């Protein structure tokens, strides 16, 4: 997945999953090819904003769009955790929990 397609990709997949649809079913609902749905969901390419809205609505959801003040979030803890392996992230959490868990 590319960094500039991740938002649209995750929204389409989320909408489809929540609607309980397969990629084929979504493709039929919005008259697109199944392979194209897959390319959007995996972030190979991004749909236009209008197409994104169509896809989300075909799943029974809407995507309210309005401008809001942008408030950057301090994501240093997340960035730090992303540098760790899943094993280390889990151990880090267990250490915080106090138990440590078995290794």
């Amino acid at each position, binding site marked *: *997945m*590319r*960094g500039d*397609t*991740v*938002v649209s*990709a*995750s929204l389409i*997949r*989320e909408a489809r*999953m*929540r609607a*309980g649809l*397969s990629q084929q079913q979504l493709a039929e609902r919005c008259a697109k090819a199944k392979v194209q749905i897959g390319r959007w969901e995996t*972030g190979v390419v991004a749909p236009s904003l209008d197409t994104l809205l169509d896809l989300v609505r075909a799943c029974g959801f809407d995507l309210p769009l309005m401008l809001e003040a942008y408030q950057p*979030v301090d*994501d240093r*803890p*997340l*960035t730090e*955790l*992303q*540098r*760790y*392996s*899943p*094993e280390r*992230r*889990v*151990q880090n*959490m*267990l250490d*915080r*929990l106090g*138990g440590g*868990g*078995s*290794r």
Partner: protein
Amino acid sequence: MSPARRTRFDPRSILAVLQAAEVQSVLIGGFARVARGSDEVTGGVDICPSLQPANLARLDVALGEMGAAGEAPIDETRLRAEPVVDLMTGFGELKVVPTPAGVPRGYEALRPGASAEHLGGGLRPTIASTGDLIAMSAALRRPEDLERLPALRRILELEAEPARLVAVQPPLKLPRALRPGEAEESARPAHLRRGGPARGRGIDR
């Protein structure tokens, strides 16, 4: 959970028993989010199992090994009646969730996006993708789930662009390649080199 049954949380032992019994399931919930990089603490393991009868039979055996005995057996009938089967094992809380919120097709929908991750000790559970964890949290719509959505979306962005995680390093200063003859010259003692013993500041040449 009654205090008498409270036990030390040992998720690796839960996952080890499931893996040894070859139970097909996808790890979801807080523990999966932690493995994906969420900054939170959880005291239980949540799984979404395949509902194949043979798999549910293996899960039932595994639960018995974990000390969750005394409960009604896990089968499709029970899982259809109880959307979340909350069990207390000898290693801590384990929730069996056949159809998580936001994923009505359950295991079949989660499995394609999930990946097996090493958690140490030979454990390689299948963990739901960050995108699917977002879908589940968004569908639950509890305040705590909605609060964690921005962080989960940020994790998704960081996963997509791992280059952002690498601090920008200054370029290495490699020595300039020597021209022909310079190697021999630089090997001579300083007082024998052409141009005198020093070429530094303060030497008037």
